[in-house]
């Protein structure tokens, strides 16, 4: 896997126990973006995720013990940084993110000059497969993030995210380990980076089931709130209005 050209793009797919969906996701990405390298970071899955991803034509790195989502995504950013990729777009391994929206995120990254582009299910609709509890959580975090980011964010929990070289460099060094999406936004904002959102549709997961239980949802809210607060304390500078 090598970056090709000044606008080199890598697709990053963190995966844990996604043997039922990962091959389709990789094939879909290849059909939308032929020739673009796809990196699957297998989070020490006990099932056949690694083999399925390799057979589907992805490059795979396997961490030797379960790191969690943030650790996996950061491993991907680290490799992209080492290899010199200009852009990385992350999608989920369960098939919820439709790869047909990757070109829109990529174009926005290239033309807007912002460091992060989020695929948002709440611009022009597209979040019909989102549970009521998740929608409530998203509403809550929108309110929390609004004064911090100085601009509204429609879908702060979206993992369908593209980043440019500047953000790759930051995330390769420092990335939230658990539930990273919201904290990552704050990390970038504290560095005066900008983000944009593009509309996209989320689908139902193609296989497997979500690891987020009711108890974990409560933990999620507390953890993310604390993470946001700590990141504000860590990086005192704010982007001027």
């Amino acid at each position, binding site marked *: 896997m090598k970056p090709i050209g000044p606008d080199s793009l890598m697709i990053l797919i963190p995966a844990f126990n996604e043997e039922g969906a990962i091959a389709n996701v990789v094939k879909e990405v290849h059909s939308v973006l032929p020739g673009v390298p796809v990196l699957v970071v297998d989070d020490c899955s006990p099932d056949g995720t690694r083999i399925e991803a390799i057979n589907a034509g992805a490059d795979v*790195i396997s961490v030797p013990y379960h*790191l969690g989502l943030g650790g996996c995504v950061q491993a991907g950013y*680290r490799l992209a940084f080492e290899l010199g990729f200009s852009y990385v777009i992350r999608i989920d391994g369960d098939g919820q993110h439709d790869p047909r929206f990757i070109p829109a995120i990529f174009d926005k990254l290239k033309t807007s000059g912002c460091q992060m582009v989020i695929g948002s299910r709440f611009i022009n609709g597209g979040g019909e497969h989102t549970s009521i509890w998740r929608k409530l959580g998203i509403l809550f975090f929108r309110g929390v993030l609004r004064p911090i980011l100085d601009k509204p964010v429609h879908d702060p929990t979206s993992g369908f995210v593209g980043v440019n070289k500047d953000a790759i460099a930051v995330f390769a060094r420092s990335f939230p380990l658990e539930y990273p999406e919201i904290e990552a936004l704050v990390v970038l904002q504290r560095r005066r980076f900008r983000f944009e959102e593009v509309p996209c549709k989320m689908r139902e997961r193609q296989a497997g089931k979500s690891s987020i239980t009711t108890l974990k949802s409560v933990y999620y809210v507390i953890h993310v709130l604390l993470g946001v607060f700590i990141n504000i304390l860590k990086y005192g500078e704010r982007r001027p209005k």
Partner: protein
Amino acid sequence: MMNRLLSVTFGMSVLLIGVVLFSVRRSHIRVEYSVSWLVAAFVMLILSSSDFVLGTIANLLGITYAPVALLLVVLSLFLMVFYRFSIVISDLKDANIALTQKLAILEYRIQDLHEERKEED
């Protein structure tokens, strides 16, 4: 009542010092991580064996019943020890994650090189 509490604390601190030294000798605890425990145990030992020191600390803290001062000091010491170990564990976790990621990346790159060589051959 007070004497019994002081005796128990004295016994516990002697036991703690013994256990820590034994663990260090058997390499179950590294020397640098035994220091916090030994300091806490020696402070417990001094406070529980000297009425004068305990009384002075109780006076300084404005506590009329000296054993309460002993409990407060012991609790504070152990909180400090736990805090120190939280820092150590966090550092270890960060290092562990970085190493794990590096290992996975290196493994991937070695495999990539092997495949490149095969193609060249």
